[in-house]
Each structure stands twice: as C-alpha cells, then as structure tokens.
C-alpha cells in the first residue's frame, strides 16, 4: 500500500534555514553541479536483538529521491509499521545532497528469530522513477526476564523495568510491584504519560503515584520514574506477567539552541519492561466456615449500634477490619452459630474507600454494617467470627467479636399478662414479674360481647349538642342581660327628658333605697325642677323648703363628697320621698 509521507521534522526546518543562508553562494554555481549524483539506498536496524514487547527501529535512507513505502511490512511474529521520516540537505563544495531517512518500528510478542524479507521501493528522482530493493534483515526477539545486567541496560538511552516483591504467592494475595522508567541523564524525565500492565488472570490497581529518582546504571547516570502499584491473582498456576508499557515525556537534549532552560522541549518515549514469571498457589483446603476471602493479616473490632432494644427492633452491628492484605475480596464477619428463629439477619453493607485500602505495605481499613432483628427475647447479640488466610504463616486465622450483652425492653404487650395474672396482689417494686413464653395467641372470647353501633363510631353524639346548647344559652343570657341594661340606660338618658317629665312621675321614678346616692339625688333634683316648672307662683314657704332640699342635692352632687357614690340609706331616701310628697300640687 503506497503511503503519502510528509516532511515535518524539526531538523528539516534547520536544514532549510541553512539552505536559505547558503542560497546566494549556490546561485553562483552551475545548476548541473547541484543535481543529484547518487541515488543510493541504505537499510539498517538500530539493534537486531530486542526483548519481547520492546520496540526496535529500522532505518531506510534514500539520497536525492523520494521513496514510496508501504505502511506495514508483513512478517509472521513481528509487527512492523511505518513511524515517520526525516530529511536533511547537505551542501558540500557547492553541491547539495538531499537525504531522507524513513523509520519503521517493530515489536515481537514471542521470543525467536525473524527475518524481514527484502521488498521493493519506488524512488522518484530527478532522472525519473526507478525501483530499488532492500536487503533482508534478521531480527532476534529475546525473553527479557529481568536478568539483563546493568551493562546491557546501560547501552540503551531509556528502558523500563518491572519488579515484583515476590514471584510466588497465593490466590487473592496482595502483591506489591513497581514499574520503573529509566532515561539517561540527570532530571531527564519530565513526567509520566501512561503506564499499563494487563493480564486476564490478575486484578491490577490503577497507577496513580509516581516517584522520581535517579541511579547509576553501568557507568551512566539515569533518571528514573518509579510507579508503585499492587495486584492479586484470580487463578492458581504459572503465569508470565508483562511486559508492561510505560510512556514518559523526556527532555529533548537536541533542542534549545544552547539555551536549554528557555527553549528546551519534551518528547514522548515509550518503553516496555521485562516480563516476570510468577507462580500462583491455590489456598489450602480446610478453610473454616467463617472464611470470607480475606488474605493478609487483620484485626477485627465490632460494636452494636444500640444495646437496649425490644423484640422486633433492628440493631446494626458495626464491624471494622484493619490490617495489611486484600480487603477487596473480604466479606463481612458471620455469626459463629446460625440463629434461625432467634435473630433475623440482613445482607451486610461494605464500605471500602480507596484512600483507606491496603497496598500490601500499609495497613488499610474496611467497614461492614449488618442489620439484625431479634425475633425472640435474648440476653446478648451472639458471637461473630471472621477467618482469613495468613500467607506468612500459611494458615487460616479466626478472629472473634462478641457476644455483646443487650437489654431487652419490656413492651406493653409483655407487661399486660403479668399484671393480669395477679390482679389482686398489691404491686411491689421488688416483686419479680413473670416472664411469658408467648407460645400461642390467646383463646377467643366467648362472653357476651358489648355491641357498638357502627354508625356511632366517631360521630358527634347528642350530649355534645346538649352541652353546646347549654353553653350558648349561658352566653346568650349574659349577653342579653348586658344588652338589656345598656338599652335601659340609653332609654333612661335619652327618652326621659327633664322638661317633659311631670312631677308626679318624677317622684315615682325615684330610685329605691340602696341604689347610688348620686343617682338618687339626680332624680330628686329632676323632681324639684319639675315641681318648679309646674308651680311658677309657688308660696314662699314652699320655696324655702325647696331651697333647703336643693342645697342638700347640690351638696351631694357637686361638692365632691367621698361617699357620694355609695348606696343611699333607706331613712335618707324615705326622708326625701316624704318631703317631695308633702309639696302642694295643682
């Protein structure tokens, strides 16, 4: 398949800059001298001995021509793909030469010796198109099991390493490991782009932490980026783990025009690590019933949410398991003895935060919460057990929690039979109450029932309305009494005017003894005024009497006497009544 290749390398830009600077010189030379003189083809490989999974590189160099190359070269056992090209222009003795290098990457997943066969390349040159053939290349893919010496590693500008804490472990056992990227030079690693290690029989934790460092490898100094993580195996057996891929951004030593701190750029380098052969052992048989999948070393603590409850009340058991090992495969503790018909249990809820997970070195923490409901009266929450496998001791270890004493509350239902059983006995605080066993419901009631009309339930009875009527009658009485008094007062003030009231009626309307003195004397004054109105030519004797009576009235009404508002005595009232009756009438 022909490819459309483009020149986009930074080196070419520099070459073009040099060419522009040299253009005036080149313009003075004959054109023929700048024509290509050599269309030779060179094929080379960076290293023909490459580790499994590592990337090797093939160079195809073409002078004074543009080659058309396939994107992929088919070789069984090898993956060979085109990866880019770079051109440069050299001017020597006023003769320019354009040299284009085409790059291929290859990778082998199995060890062995492979041959990249010769293939045709079409080269378009100034003299016309021609076909050239490459030479066969022999590539050896070797197993990189990590045993390569430092001297071998030191020959590479960058490389990766996979290191395990141990190569023999149990199923579900947490195994820490590190991926390390080495790049030649001090502070050569800018950052880590990606890291991956995959295997269908292993569960890997994501790579999140990076620790940069440096080390002498051979006689060279390498910067390193260490990426720790851990995994656990799902299946027993022998497995080959890796190679892992690591991509890091490294500082490009060719950039910066000599001012590295200002203009330095980074390039991404992908590297693969060695492989590691591991042996995964199955867990030994004879696991206890309380084994819930935990592998490591753990401690268990537990507490009930409440310690006072009644039958049917839910209680939550809170468990906390701490330790180093695999917490992800661990399930909640279980009751040491099944509690059918005594305790109803629900599925436990598990809480494991990533921040609190164990990484194989540091201790982690997982919490379980389980709801239990007592179905009968009990004295304690029973014992729980949690078994795990300790890979160091190579044995199962069982942890215990409980039993937890609880106080069962006496419900109303429980108390009632106790009271009913001894109705005649005097209640004593120290008396022990009988404990019912509650083995069945009570027998039916066979006595004469007290029938209630369904329609009467919740309805307002006649008594309610009778009471409402009585209350309203009382209220209306008070209200009516007050209203009557008010009306009488109004009528008395407005309807009975002194000018129109005759003397005889004024005398009749004198208030009785016991009423207010003010009121009484007002009435007397009104009566006197009426008599004067009716007897304008009264004898002097009568005038004298009237004068004395009027003086007494005025003394009471207008002198501000302290007892003016008090009740009038019967004798005083009678005296005035007699005086007024003795007055002559027409």
């Amino acid at each position, binding site marked *: 398949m022909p490819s459309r290749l483009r020149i986009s390398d930074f080196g070419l830009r520099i070459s073009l800059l040099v060419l522009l600077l040299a253009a005036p010189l080149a313009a003075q030379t004959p054109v023929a001298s700048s024509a290509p003189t050599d269309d030779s083809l060179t094929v080379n490989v960076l290293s023909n001995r490459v580790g499994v999974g590592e990337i090797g590189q093939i160079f195809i160099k073409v002078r004074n021509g543009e080659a058309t190359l396939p994107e992929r070269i088919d070789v069984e056992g090898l993956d060979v793909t085109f990866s880019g090209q770079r051109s440069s222009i050299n001017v020597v003795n006023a003769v320019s030469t354009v040299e284009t290098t085409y790059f291929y990457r290859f990778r082998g997943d199995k060890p062995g010796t492979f041959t990249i066969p010769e293939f045709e390349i079409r080269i378009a040159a100034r003299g016309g198109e021609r076909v050239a053939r490459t030479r066969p290349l022999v590539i050896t893919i070797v197993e990189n099991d990590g045993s390569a010496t430092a001297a071998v590693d030191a020959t590479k500008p960058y490389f990766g390493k996979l290191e395990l804490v141990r190569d023999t472990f149990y199923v579900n056992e947490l195994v820490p490991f590190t991926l390390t990227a080495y790049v030649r030079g001090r502070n050569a690693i800018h950052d880590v782009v990606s890291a991956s290690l995959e295997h269908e029989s292993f569960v890997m934790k994501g790579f999140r932490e990076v620790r940069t460092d440096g080390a002498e490898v051979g006689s060279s100094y390498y910067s390193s980026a260490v990426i720790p993580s851990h995994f656990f195996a799902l299946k027993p057996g022998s497995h080959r783990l890796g190679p892992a891929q690591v991509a890091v951004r490294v500082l490009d030593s060719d950039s910066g025009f000599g001012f590295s701190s200002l203009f330095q750029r980074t390039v991404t380098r992908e590297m693969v690590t060695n492989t590691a052969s591991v042996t995964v052992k199955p867990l030994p048989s004879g696991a206890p019933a309380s084994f819930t999948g935990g592998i490591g070393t753990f401690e268990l603590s537990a507490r009930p949410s409440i310690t006072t409850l009644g*039958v*049917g*009340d*839910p209680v939550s058991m809170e468990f906390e398991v701490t330790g180093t090992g695999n917490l992800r495969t661990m399930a909640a503790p279980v009751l040491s003895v099944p509690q059918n018909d005594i305790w*109803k249990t629900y599925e436990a809820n598990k809480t494991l935060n990533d921040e609190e997970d164990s990484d194989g070195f540091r201790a982690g923490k997982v919490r379980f919460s389980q709801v239990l*409901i*007592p*179905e*009968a*009266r009990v004295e304690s929450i029973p014992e729980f057990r949690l078994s795990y496998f300790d890979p160091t001791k190579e044995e199962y270890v069982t942890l215990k929690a409980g039993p937890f004493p609880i106080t069962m509350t006496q*419900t*109303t*239902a*429980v108390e*009632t*039979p106790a009271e*009913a059983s001894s109705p005649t006995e005097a209640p004593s605080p120290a008396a022990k109450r009988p404990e*019912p066993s*509650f*083995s*069945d*419901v*009570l*027998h*039916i*009631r*066979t*006595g*004469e*029932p*007290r*029938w*209630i*009309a*369904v*329609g009467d*339930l*919740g309805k*307002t*009875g006649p008594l*309610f309305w009778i*009471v*409402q009527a009585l*209350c*309203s009658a*009382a*209220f209306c009485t*008070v*209200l009516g*009494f*007050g*209203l009557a*008094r008010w009306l009488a007062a109004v009528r008395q003030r407005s309807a009975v005017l002194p000018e129109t009231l005759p003397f005889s009626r004024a005398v009749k309307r004198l208030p009785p003894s016991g009423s207010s003195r003010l009121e009484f004397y007002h009435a007397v004054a009104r009566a006197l005024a009426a008599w004067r109105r009716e007897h304008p030519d009264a004898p002097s004797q009568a005038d004298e009497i009237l004068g004395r009576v009027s003086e007494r009235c005025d003394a009471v009404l207008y002198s501000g006497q302290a007892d003016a508002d008090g009740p009038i005595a019967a004798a005083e009232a009678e005296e005035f009544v007699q005086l007024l009756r003795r007055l002559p009438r027409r």
Partner: protein
Amino acid sequence: MTVRLLVLCLLCVLSGAAAKADPSAAFAEANRLFESGDHAGAAAAYEALVGRDRLSADLLYNLGASKHRLGESGEGALWMRRALVLDPGMPEAVQSLAYLRAKLAFFEFAQRPLNRYLGGLPASFGRWSVSLCLWAGLIALSSAFLLPRLKPNRSTLIALGLVLFMAAFVASRASRYRNERLAVENFATVVKPDTLALTAPVSDAKTVVALPPGSEVRLLQASGPWSYVEIPGDLRGWVRSEAVVPVWPIPSPAP
C-alpha cells in the same frame, strides 16, 4: 328437590333474620364453630357479623384468632389491631399481638409517650375540648364586661378568657396532629407474605426492605395498584396496594 331447596332457603332467610335481630346468637354460634375446630367456618361467621351495623371488640378479636389459626397471621394481626380500636386496653388482643410480633418479627411504630397519650384520646377529643374552651372563654369575657356585679373581678375574668382561648388553639392543633399522624385511620397492616417495599411503583424497582406479615405502615398516598407508605425506622417505600389493608375504618364487604 325443589321443596328441599325452598326449605333451605327459608331456613337461611329465617336464620338470617334471627341473626340480624340478635347478633349475640350468631356470635355464640361462630364461637361454637371455632371451638369445634372449624376455623374457616368460624371466620366466615365472624366476617358475616362484621358486615352488619354493630361491632364488638370481642368479635374482631375472635376473627383475628380465627385468621391466625387458618395460617393468615398478617390478617390475624390486622383484626386484633381493629379490636384494640374499639377497646384500647383489651388484654387478649395486646397479648396475642405480642406473640405474633415475636413470631413474625413484624415492624411496628415505636410511639413516644406524648404520641401514645394523644393517640389514646377519643376521636371527639378535639371537638369537645375546642368547643368547651371557646364557650368558657366567651362567657368569661362577656361576664367581665356586661355584668356590673363582677366588675371588681373584671381583670381576672379577662385573663381567664384569654387563657381559655389559647387552650382552645392548643387543643385544635393537638387534635389536628392526632387526626393526621396518630389516628388509626392513617395506619395499615401488611397482610400478604413476601411483601417488599420498593423504591418506585414499578415491579423491577430496588428493594427498600422486606415487610413481614403484620407489619404496621402509615399510608401516605395511594396510586392505583401501589401505595406509598411510611415504614417504622423512618423509611418510606412503595408496596402493592393489595398487600396492605387499612386498620380503620373496616371496609364494607364486597356484595
């Protein structure tokens, strides 16, 4: 054959008329069926009595015991709770419910003392207390202003009237709280086994909690075949409407 049928019908009509006239006789007959071991017949006889216009706590309790004997313990708990509506202190119902609670491990609302007190008040408590307080307050205030002989005690009467008005307000609020939260009409009992409270009114919704028969729930909303209920423990969920039956009022029997 026709004659026999007619005689049977006549007997039924006559016995029905007699039972209608005297429910105690029918009650005694149902008790006899229960004691003879015919729990299904006894339950049917009790249910026939429930459909009439007169009820008794004894009748409801006996029906609950019959249902329990028939293996319908959820229904048994329901009828015993109904018996407690008519007779809140009925010892037989209280004790048998305690047994069913231990056996079925059903959920029940734990009531605070004040709620228990308010819930135990009769339904007419609100009407009585509010009306009496209002009347007394009105009479006190009107007496203070309209009766001259009580003029020296006017301030005392005004204070008494205001206190009574406040008491009427408090009684009104308490009555409303009782009717909306504590009244027996708000509660229902789970009568079907394997009842689940779900997070949504669809069959494939997630489970909130499994409700054992006899569990007490508070009805919040009915939505066709689903009911939204409050579950003891501050939980809420959707249950099938046919799985829960209101404690009160007793629904009329199907014709």
